[in-house]
């Protein structure tokens, strides 16, 4: 679920410090300016960080990239591509599963994975 920019920024700062990275060091690692990182952390940035940038943040911090991309209010580029490749079926699928619990979605994913494995030519 997307957090507000201020909430996302506060979480980012908390995790960065927990990992022992200073503002300038972390900015260098994720290849942004310290000023932009500071603006993200204080919720003052005029633009949200890109999905790729959030992925890099999550990787450096050892967090789940997909969860962080969602919290930053972004959609991962590969997900966008999947939707654009099947513009009718994928949105329909998403609407269908919307509202299910995390466990129910996990069950569906596992079922699809098993089905794919069965269908693969041996």
């Amino acid at each position, binding site marked *: 679920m997307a957090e507000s920019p201020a909430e996302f920024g506060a979480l980012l*700062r908390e995790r960065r410090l927990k990992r022992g990275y200073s*503002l300038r060091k972390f900015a260098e690692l994720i290849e942004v300016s310290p*000023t932009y990182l*500071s603006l993200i952390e204080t919720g003052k940035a005029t633009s949200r960080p890109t999905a790729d940038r959030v992925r890099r943040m999550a990787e450096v911090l050892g967090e789940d990239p997909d969860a962080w991309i969602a919290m930053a209010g972004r959609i991962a580029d590969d997900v966008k591509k999947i939707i654009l490749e099947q513009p009718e079926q994928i949105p329909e699928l998403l609407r269908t599963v919307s509202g299910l619990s995390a466990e129910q979605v996990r069950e569906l994913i596992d079922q699809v994975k098993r089905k794919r494995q069965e269908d693969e030519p041996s």
Partner: protein
Amino acid sequence: MSFGIPQRHRVQFMPEPHIEREADALLAEFAAAGHELTVPIPIDEIIELHLRLQLEIDDLRGRFGSDDVLGAIWLEDGRIAVDRSLDHHRHTGRFNFTLAHEVGHWRLHRHQILASPDGPTLFEVEGQPGIVCRDGAKAPEEWQANTFAGYLLMPREHVRAAWQEWRGDDEPVPDAALDVDDVAANQDWAVRAARERFVRPFADQFNVSAMAMRIRLEKLNLLVCEVEPRLF
């Protein structure tokens, strides 16, 4: 918006050796807490990881409507901000010095202000910082914070050890050994400029400006007008 500290909060006189001891004490605390004390002095880590102060880079000049604002500190919130104009590779030295300067306010002046009858609450209202620091400010608390910053970023023992490694000995360098323009040799500014050209590579080791390093080396008598003859 007023700058510096409001008049009623003016700080007490503090001898320079006392300021140096305060800076050394902070570095010792940082090392004792298990952090690695290296050169350049890791001022960001001291602020964020040791003192647990919040660090921000923001458009302070725009916010306070003055082109000479460098930094600010919120004493109640434990928050330091640096103007975004310093976030440039050409200004790393000034950036670090500004951070160390704000730490100087935190270490030297916070308790004095908190102990005053007004406390900081009367002027840290509506999100305004307790102290706003400008380039070239001359108030006593600004001089003290600058002095603290010099000692924090260029500790005596570290500078002497690095000087010995850089020069091969611990001898001072006299002006006669520098490239001072002959025509302007008697001018103070020409001597200062020559000294700063000379120490720039040394200053880079500490990530401070050539000016800050020149001042530190002058205090340590490593940059001198002329070398005093030795008795033995």
